[in-house]
């Protein structure tokens, strides 16, 4: 419902940008999807921290699931960003933009998480190694996020939020907020479904071993 409302507001209610025309409406999915990816990676790092600090074994699966969802949203960020770049700048990708490259590094870093995880045997050692890796990735989060604010603005748009508040009209801001809430809710729902699925899989494995 929230997603349909958000997309409806973005496509039908929010005013069209005078400079970019209809393609500016990609903003309402691209930015919320990117922020959701950051949130997922942040959540994964928090769960990894809990595993290392408190020895909470459930946090391993939770951290892994958050990385899983974050990578999906990261991929969507890159794809929607590329489409927006093509229509706005005439290219699918440019290496001269630090923000883009840093987000790609963040995405590849968390994509490599799966290689690390599946290259070691399941158990406490794998859980700890994965947690350290996920926690290390948290260092890249502020770097990637702040790059959009600190880097020279060549092609990538300047941040739309500064100390004076949102640099857009009220209807644009409301549409953006609803889209962001929708993406976060979608990610949360996918996270819970994926986590439940993985837990059920683990229980099934145990049952199979017991009955074998």
């Amino acid at each position, binding site marked *: 419902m929230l997603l349909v409302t958000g997309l409806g507001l973005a496509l039908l209610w929010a005013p069209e940008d005078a400079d970019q025309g209809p393609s500016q409406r990609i903003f309402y*999915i691209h930015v919320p999807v990117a922020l959701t990816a950051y949130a997922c990676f942040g959540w994964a790092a928090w769960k990894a921290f809990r595993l290392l600090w408190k020895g909470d074994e459930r946090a391993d699966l939770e951290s892994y699931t958050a990385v899983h969802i974050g990578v*999906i949203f990261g991929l969507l960020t890159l794809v929607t960003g590329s489409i927006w770049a*093509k229509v706005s700048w005439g290219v699918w990708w440019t290496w001269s933009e630090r923000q883009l490259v840093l987000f790609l590094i963040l995405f590849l870093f968390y994509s490599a998480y799966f290689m690390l995880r599946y290259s070691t045997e399941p158990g406490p050692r794998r859980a700890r190694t994965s947690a350290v890796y996920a926690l290390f990735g948290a260092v890249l989060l502020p770097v990637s996020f702040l790059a959009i604010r600190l880097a020279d603005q060549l092609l990538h748009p300047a941040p739309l939020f500064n100390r004076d508040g949102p640099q857009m009209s009220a209807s644009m801001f409301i549409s953006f907020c609803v889209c962001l809430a929708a993406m976060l809710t979608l990610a949360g729902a996918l996270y819970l479904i994926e986590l439940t699925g993985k837990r059920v899989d683990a229980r*099934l494995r145990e049952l199979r071993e017991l*009955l074998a």
Partner: protein
Amino acid sequence: MSTGEKYLAAAYLVLFAAVLLYVVLIALKVTRIERELTELARLAKERAGG
């Protein structure tokens, strides 16, 4: 349809396709779990002599 509108539609379709794909994958997973549970229930009944 202008070029901007085509790219806009493409971006929104990518998101829609991703969500749809995920729903299909989850549906496949639930079907597999149901199949495995049925198999395990059958095994458990056999063990119990039922």
